[in-house]
């Protein structure tokens, strides 16, 4: 690490690791419930587990993004964070709000709107928290020596993500209107501005890990985020087919959402190409695994499996079935989970000065979590397609169809165990690194010095 204040990032990553463990735990509760073992029903009914699983997912990813920003922005803008103290306050309040929300869910304190369950009073605290975060990032960036494209794209993603949280806070009497604006948050996050965050982190990692010229990487970054917005904004229409919105969304949503995989394809090709192009290889191989892995798996999970159910004629049958859960898991893991893990894998040796990369544990963590998640995706997919045929095509009663597909949740749990083992090993490695070390400050552990060209 070059700047002392980058150490803050470590604690955001640590919070991320803690919350992913809880998220996975609640995933298991739901997996067992689907299999017919709902023994926890009285204490943790399915909807509590669901709200907890989804919100913890969002919070650990956001915590990871924030950590990434606190690491990347000082380095890119060549400036210490303007206030480290405030950054720690922001960390602690983020953790407090998250924990309060999760506890609240267990006492029926929530807003039953998928992914936006956090109750309104806490929403305001989230807003204050995120404004603090953005304040620190923006002032650091603009007081810094330079504003690189990578830093600008990352920051733009974070600012837009904050703005887009707001439409989810408006009250509507109409369920349909509620749904319409819920997608301004959910869709425009994951298929819009979060891709800017992912692109920014990816570009930073590729610059560090491949040594390819910054100008080249950043040019393609613009093309990728250009493709994202070109397709993703009007692609929102793929959620407007069947919620009481007019028919023109079937055409517009169909066409533009079918173009969305292009941005993910570009991201995968870009990462692979830059990796090949970079003559020298960075010693931190495991960070390269996670970086390239994220670019490729996001194309499969978001791009291909998204495409699989995005056309109106298909979505008519798959809308709101386990097919959606199949896609949701691989997309979230590939695009956002893996990029956060990539950032952590890159940053830990830098923050602590310990070069523990390339140990077998790191490799097992990568492969077990990846294969486990692919297996889970297959299990959800098989269950989902069977559900669609039995319930939607043949007209069987919902529960009759559910009992037929219970067995696939056994497979899901097996694969989830493998996935969880991989994540556990990653965390074990995380702990082995220990805390950030002041001796690491000012060192650049990138082996092949600084190959950066200035903007």
């Amino acid at each position, binding site marked *: 690490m070059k700047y002392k204040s980058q150490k803050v990032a470590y604690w955001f990553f640590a919070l991320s690791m803690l919350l992913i463990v809880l998220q996975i735990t609640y995933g298991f509760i739901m997996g067992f419930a689907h299999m017919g073992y709902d023994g926890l029903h009285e204490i943790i009914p399915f909807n509590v587990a*669901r709200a907890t699983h989804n919100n913890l997912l969002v919070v650990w990813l956001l915590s990871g993004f924030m950590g990434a920003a606190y690491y990347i922005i000082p380095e890119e803008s060549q400036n210490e964070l303007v206030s480290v103290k405030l950054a720690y306050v922001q960390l602690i309040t983020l953790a407090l709000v998250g924990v309060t929300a999760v506890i609240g869910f267990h006492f*029926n304190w929530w807003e039953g709107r998928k992914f936006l369950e956090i109750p309104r009073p806490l929403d305001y605290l989230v807003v204050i928290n995120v404004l603090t975060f953005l304040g620190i990032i923006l002032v650091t960036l603009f007081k810094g020596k330079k504003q690189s494209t990578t830093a600008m794209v990352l920051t733009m993603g974070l600012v837009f993500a904050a703005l887009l949280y707001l439409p989810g806070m408006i009250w509507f009497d109409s369920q349909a209107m509620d749904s319409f604006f819920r997608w301004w948050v959910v869709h425009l996050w994951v298929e819009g501005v979060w891709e800017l965050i992912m692109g920014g982190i990816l570009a930073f990692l590729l610059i560090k890990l491949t040594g390819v010229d910054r100008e080249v990487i950043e040019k393609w970054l613009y093309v990728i985020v250009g493709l994202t917005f070109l397709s993703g904004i009007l692609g929102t229409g793929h959620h407007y087919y069947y919620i009481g919105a007019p028919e023109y969304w079937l055409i517009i949503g169909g066409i533009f959402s079918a173009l969305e995989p292009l941005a993910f394809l570009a991201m995968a090709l870009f990462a692979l190409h830059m990796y090949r192009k970079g003559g020298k290889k960075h010693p931190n191989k495991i960070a390269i695994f996670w970086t390239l892995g994220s670019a490729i798996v996001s194309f499969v999970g978001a791009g291909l499996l998204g495409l699989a159910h995005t056309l109106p004629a298909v979505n008519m049958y798959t809308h*709101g079935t386990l097919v959606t859960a199949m896609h949701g898991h691989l997309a979230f893991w590939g695009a956002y989970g893996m990029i956060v893990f990539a950032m952590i894998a890159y940053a830990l040796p830098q923050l602590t000065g310990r070069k523990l990369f390339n140990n077998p544990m790191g490799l097992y963590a990568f492969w077990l979590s990846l294969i486990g998640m692919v297996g889970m995706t297959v299990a959800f997919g098989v269950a989902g397609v069977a559900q669609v045929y039995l319930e939607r095509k043949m*007209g069987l009663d919902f529960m009759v169809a*559910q009992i037929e597909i219970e067995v696939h949740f056994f497979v899901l749990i097996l694969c989830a165990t493998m996935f969880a083992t991989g994540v556990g090993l990653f965390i074990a490695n995380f702990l082995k690194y220990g805390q950030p070390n002041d001796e690491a400050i000012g060192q650049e552990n990138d082996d092949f010095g600084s190959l950066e060209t200035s903007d």
Partner: protein
Amino acid sequence: MLSKKQAKAFFLGGTVLFSAIFLALSFETVTVSMPEKTNADQITDAVVRGKVIWESNNCMGCHTILGEGAYYAPELTRVYSRKGESYIKTVLMAKEPWAPRGRKMVAYGLTEEQANDAVAFFKWIDAMDLNGFPPEPDPTLSK
């Protein structure tokens, strides 16, 4: 070859253009088409109270409505015509977990008035024009 400047112009230009189109279409949807297709004029106080019950108990944490929610319990968009008023009220007012075929629902034990509000909400949802969703089963496949 494409220059970085051109790439930036592509990004900024595309973003502005497609955001503008999106905002214009969204405006049409929420002010004209959606209120018509969803009978917004029929949203009574009871319907709104029903929506509050729906949200404050996170029913979407198990069920889907308009195809959105969780996949643990039945789709409820057309539940009013499928099951009828009295069935819905019985389920919502039950003091013991309703568990047809073994999968338990939370026992909400709603009052009669609350259950009526929930029914009003489902009745309003039931009448929406949803471009053909949920699909009719294929008669050649059903038994």
